[in-house]
């Protein structure tokens, strides 16, 4: 029998491109059957300089395998962001993900394509050969370290990563994320996270890009 999970959270913060405070809410549902999992999610703008109500979607499929009796997960995903009136950003890629008692680690790659919308192509008379641009082979990584074992009813974790549910940064733009998890009962958990984003790491010199807080709930339907 399968297991369904829903994660819902809200982000509040500021970034160099948001013209002040932004508020975004997200809902992600997943269904696990055997060693397989499918997941989809939707991002919603509550307060933003982007007029689109739903600027992001996420689709993911994964399969778990055993390596020396320990689980490893291979994920394939597609993300689409329409955070601009005239451009869309589509990412697809694959991730290798392992979870252990005190840490989890993911490594993968993605291809990002920026493309002008049909309306923009017509408005600005954009030539066919200038409609899209693809960034190939971006490295994705996430390392999270936890204070207590993963199955503890509360935990604190610290992550270094270049991606989130609806966004993938370039490999040279790491983010730091401090999270607190609290399990209310067998079905419900609360999460609170603080994210700090830099504009680069291997630049010899990089500045602040953004900061935001996330609060949410995980609901496991057995």
């Amino acid at each position, binding site marked *: 029998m399968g297991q369904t999970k829903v994660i819902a959270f809200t982000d509040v913060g500021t970034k160099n491109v948001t013209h002040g405070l932004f508020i975004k809410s997200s809902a992600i549902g997943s269904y696990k059957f055997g060693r397989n999992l499918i997941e989809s999610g939707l991002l919603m703008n509550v307060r933003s300089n982007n007029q689109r109500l739903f600027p992001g979607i996420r689709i993911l499929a994964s399969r778990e395998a055993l390596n020396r009796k320990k689980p490893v997960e291979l994920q394939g995903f597609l993300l689409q962001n329409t955070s*601009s009136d005239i451009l869309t950003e589509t990412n697809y890629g694959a991730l290798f993900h392992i979870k252990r008692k005190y840490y989890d680690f993911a490594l993968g790659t993605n291809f990002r394509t*920026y493309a002008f919308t049909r309306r923009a192509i017509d408005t600005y008379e954009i030539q066919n050969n200038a409609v899209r641009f693809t*960034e190939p*082979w971006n490295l994705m990584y996430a390392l999270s*370290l936890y204070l207590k074992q993963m199955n503890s009813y509360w935990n604190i974790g610290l992550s270094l990563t270049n991606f989130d549910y609806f966004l993938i940064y370039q490999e*040279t733009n790491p983010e730091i994320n401090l999270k607190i998890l609290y399990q209310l009962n067998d079905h419900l958990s609360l999460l609170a996270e603080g994210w700090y984003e830099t504009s680069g790491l291997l*630049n010899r010199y*990089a500045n602040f*890009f953004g900061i935001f807080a996330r609060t949410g709930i995980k609901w496991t339907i057995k």
Partner: protein
Amino acid sequence: MRTSPVIFLSLLFIFTVCTDEKNTIIPTESANERFAESMQWNAQHPYREIILTMDDYTILSIADCHVGSTKNLDQLFIVAKNTNSSAIVLVGDLTTGDSQDYEEFVKHLPPKDTLPLFFIAGNHDEFYSGWKEFYNRFGSSTYYFSVKTPHATDYFICLETGGATLGDDQLQWLEENLKSKREDYRHCFIFTHNNLLRAHHTLSTTPLAEEVVTLVQLFTKYHVGIVITGHDHLQDDRLFGITRYIQLDAFSDENRNAGYLRLNINNGMISYSFENI
């Protein structure tokens, strides 16, 4: 309570790196602070206008000369004189970041008022508190200038992206300038150090995807003709939307492919070529 030792080791690592006296991760000032200083400079030094008696003109641009050594730089000023160029725009990483490099760089510049030079700070120029060195010598790194010919005026905007982001204040300044001034000019060009588009896999930092989207949108809406950058030390030239994105080779003496961009306006039309030094 059982505690994972790795978390403390990692926290210790972050603390150690962040408090490194050479500021490898934490810069000495923010993008907004550098922008504010640039605006202070602009308030005391009016934006420059180059007035020409001919309709056709040439502007040269280089990136990443990384002085130290100055062989290519010396040669560039001779080329500029021989080609009767109207200005040179140096799009960042003028130095390797040392104050001695700045001294050396300034020594090799042509005499003031013989050739308009426009400087933009790059990430190397700002390293080791280098922004102060840059600012004391060249002033603002966020400004515009114009070239006025008998029949039209063109608009040149210089942006500071040494910290791999414009910062929100500079972004707002850019947006307001494009909105209020763009239609007064014929062509519009943007110069900045950090390349925006990652055309190939690189470990060189570029602005975050959200900033890239914001900038491409602005450049498209306001009909920016060409965006000229450096930083990645590898030439690239591509049209995306209605804007051409040019990434220059490093102009440093060590680079075998060192070259400059020659930007020509002839009969009101833009053309350009990459020239080896």
